[in-house]
Structure formats: C-alpha cells, structure tokens
C-alpha cells in the first residue's frame, strides 16, 4: 500500500532531490540535524532545541511574531509599490486609488498599515520580555545591541512610510520630525537639508523617503535580522528564566575569582 509518507521517502531518494538537498535520506538524529545545518537559511538556527523552549510561556513567541509582521510588511509593501508613484502630483491620488479603485488595494493597504503598528508594538513587547527576564545578559549582550539597531530601523521605517500618502498629516508630521533633526548642534541644518533634499518637505523629500522606505531600510533590516537569528544559535540558544542560572562569561567569572 502506497501511503503519502513512503511516497515522500521515494521522492527524497530520487536523483533530483538528492542533487538539491545534500543532507541524505535517513531519519536518524544526525540526518535531522544535517537538514538544518546544511540549509543556507535554516543554518542560522540551532540544529537542536529543547522541546520545553517551545512552550509559549518561555518567549511568548514575540520575536517570531515580530518577524512574521515584517514578512507581511515586505510582501504587502512590494504589491503596493506596483500602484504607487513617488511623485508630488500622483502620490496622494495613487493612495486614494489604492483605497477605492484597485481590487484588494484597500485590504493590502490596511494590512500594511496594521502590520506596521503591530510590528512596532511587538518589537517593544519583545524587548521588554528580553529585558525583564534578563535575557540580555552575557553572553547575549551583543545580540541586545543588534536588537536596539533593529528597533531604530523599525522606527525609521514607520517614520519614512508616514510621508508616502502625501496628505496633510504626512506633510506636517515630516515637517515637524525633520525639524527635530535641525536641533543637532552645528550640523543640524545640513542634516535637515540632506534628509529632505531641500529646505522644505517637497518632491525631493518624497523621493528620498520612498527610497529609504522601500530599499535602504528594508535591506538594512534583513541584514541585521540575519545576524540577530544567527547570534541566538551562537550564544547558546533561547534563554529561559526557568533553566539553570545564566551562564557567566569567563571574564566576569575570573574577576570574581580574584
């Protein structure tokens, strides 16, 4: 009798499958580990995770949910880009067309908007969880730094995306926000000028914020997310307060010994 399970086994033994996936066909622990370890994407993650670390109480899945929001934002954002022109005469009417004319445009725009709100909320919740459980401590200090960078990128993505509908709210929010940059001593006005590509929020500012929002900041986010995930494995997996006392780094251990 051919079940779906042994049909899949046959597939895994086929020459095409073996040429793509080098990790072998066995079901042993070693082979299961190799599947993770030899995959370019999965090797960012630990090959083994204790099953109790997957209980919701350990992490509340906040980091995973943040990444989920990011994936939704990237996919809906790419679709929105197909109907949006970052130019002064068109930006506002394109936004309205997305609301009222484009099929599913309203759904995609709202999904993008609500996911953006959710991502900011989840990033903060994730950081509070890490902070109050002490998961930032050695040897995970550097991953906390990466997390702070990702928080800043998230806020900058929200801020640059705010201008794109090109309505009154967007215009004044960016006018006020970019004037805050002018408060930097000495170089404040130069930063303001470079950020907007002019002295006022205008066509250049719209284009610059569009490029930042759709290209530079998402690429930076993906880059740091990859390091963030990889560091979880390198720093000894997920941290839980119910496990033994946190590992003390060698330097602080030797200091105490002295």
């Amino acid at each position: 009798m051919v079940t779906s399970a042994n049909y899949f086994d046959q597939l895994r033994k086929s020459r095409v499958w073996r040429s793509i996936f080098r990790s072998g066909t066995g079901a042993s622990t070693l082979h299961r580990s190799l599947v993770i370890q030899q995959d370019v994407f999965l090797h960012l993650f630990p090959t083994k995770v204790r099953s109790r670390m997957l209980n919701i109480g350990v992490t509340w899945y906040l980091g995973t949910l943040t990444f989920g929001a990011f994936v939704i934002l990237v996919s809906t954002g790419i679709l929105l880009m197909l109907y949006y022109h970052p130019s002064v005469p068109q930006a506002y009417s394109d936004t309205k067309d997305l609301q009222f004319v484009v099929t599913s445009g309203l759904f995609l725009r709202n999904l993008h908007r609500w996911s953006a709100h959710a991502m900011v909320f989840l990033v903060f919740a994730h950081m509070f969880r890490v902070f109050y459980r002490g998961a930032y401590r050695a040897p995970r200090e550097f991953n906390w730094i990466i997390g702070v960078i990702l928080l800043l990128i998230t806020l900058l993505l929200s801020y640059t995306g705010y201008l794109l509908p090109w309505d009154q709210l967007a215009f004044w929010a960016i006018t006020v926000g970019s004037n805050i940059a002018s408060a930097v001593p000495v170089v404040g006005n130069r930063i303001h000028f470079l950020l907007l590509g002019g002295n006022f929020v205008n066509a250049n500012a719209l284009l610059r914020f569009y490029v930042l929002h759709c290209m530079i900041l998402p690429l930076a986010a993906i880059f740091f997310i990859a390091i963030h995930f990889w560091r979880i494995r390198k720093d000894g997996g997920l941290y839980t307060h119910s496990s033994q006392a946190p590992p003390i780094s060698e330097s602080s251990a030797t200091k105490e010994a002295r």
Partner: protein
Amino acid sequence: MGDEKQVPQSESTALDRRAFFVKLGLGSLSVAAAGTAVFSYQFLSPNVLFEPSPIINAGKPEGYPLDSVTLDVNSGIYLIHSNEGFFSIGAVCTHLGCLTAWKPELGIIACPCHGSKFRRNGEKIEGPAPRPLPWYRVWLSEEGDLMVDRSTTIRAMQFLRV
C-alpha cells in the same frame, strides 16, 4: 636567507618592505575613503532646487485695511497693516516648523501643533517656541506693489509707511 635574519636591525627606524606597503596601502585606502565621503556628501546635496522664490509680491497696499493681519498660506508669511505702518513676519513656528494661525478674537498668533503663542509683532508670549517670529524685509516695487523677501530678516519694529 638564514644569514639575512641575523643582520641586526635598528627596530625604531627600519621600515621593511612589508610594513612600507602596508602603510602605503592603508594610506591610499584612507584617502580614497575620505574622497568617497566628500563626493557622497556633495552628491546628496542637490545643486538645483525647484523651490519657490523667497521674494513674494503681496499686491497693492490698498488690499490690506488698517489694523488687519493677513496670512498667506502658500508663502508662510503674515502681512500686517498696523497704525505704525506695514510689516511682514514669518508664519512658520520657530519651534518645529508648523504653520501658525492668527486668532482675531484673542489678538494673538497661535501654533496648532504644540501651543506656542506670539503677539502680533512676532514677540513670543509662551513656548515651546525658542525664538520670536522673524521680521522680513518689506518694500514697495516700482509698480507700487508690496514686496516681501523671506530670505532677509530685519530687526523688529521697522515699519513701512505708504
């Protein structure tokens, strides 16, 4: 080769070939990096701006009755005809750049964003604005139109009498 190693070298002054090329390489890389930074900065600063002219033609003085405050939303200035004469002050709040509004019932200029308040002559009543509203140069053109230069601020209380 073995003999060469035994030649004593004065370590402070000797610059062997490898150290020389390392210095040369790092030096040229730093020069190139500094050049790239300068070029990037210049590239990111636009040379031509398609922004409106700072000089505004506000029309004939007769269009502004005595004791009136007129806001030009597009250019962000007030044109005020007081008993002392005409003057123009900026309507953009000195705090974070919002457009202020004239409140005739209170006789003050108020910012909707963070609550700064100014007198009709630009003087600050209360913050968070750090500075009073600027006075702009006003003059009469040859055709008799009121002209305002937003790029030239003048000392307060200089009125144009027509």
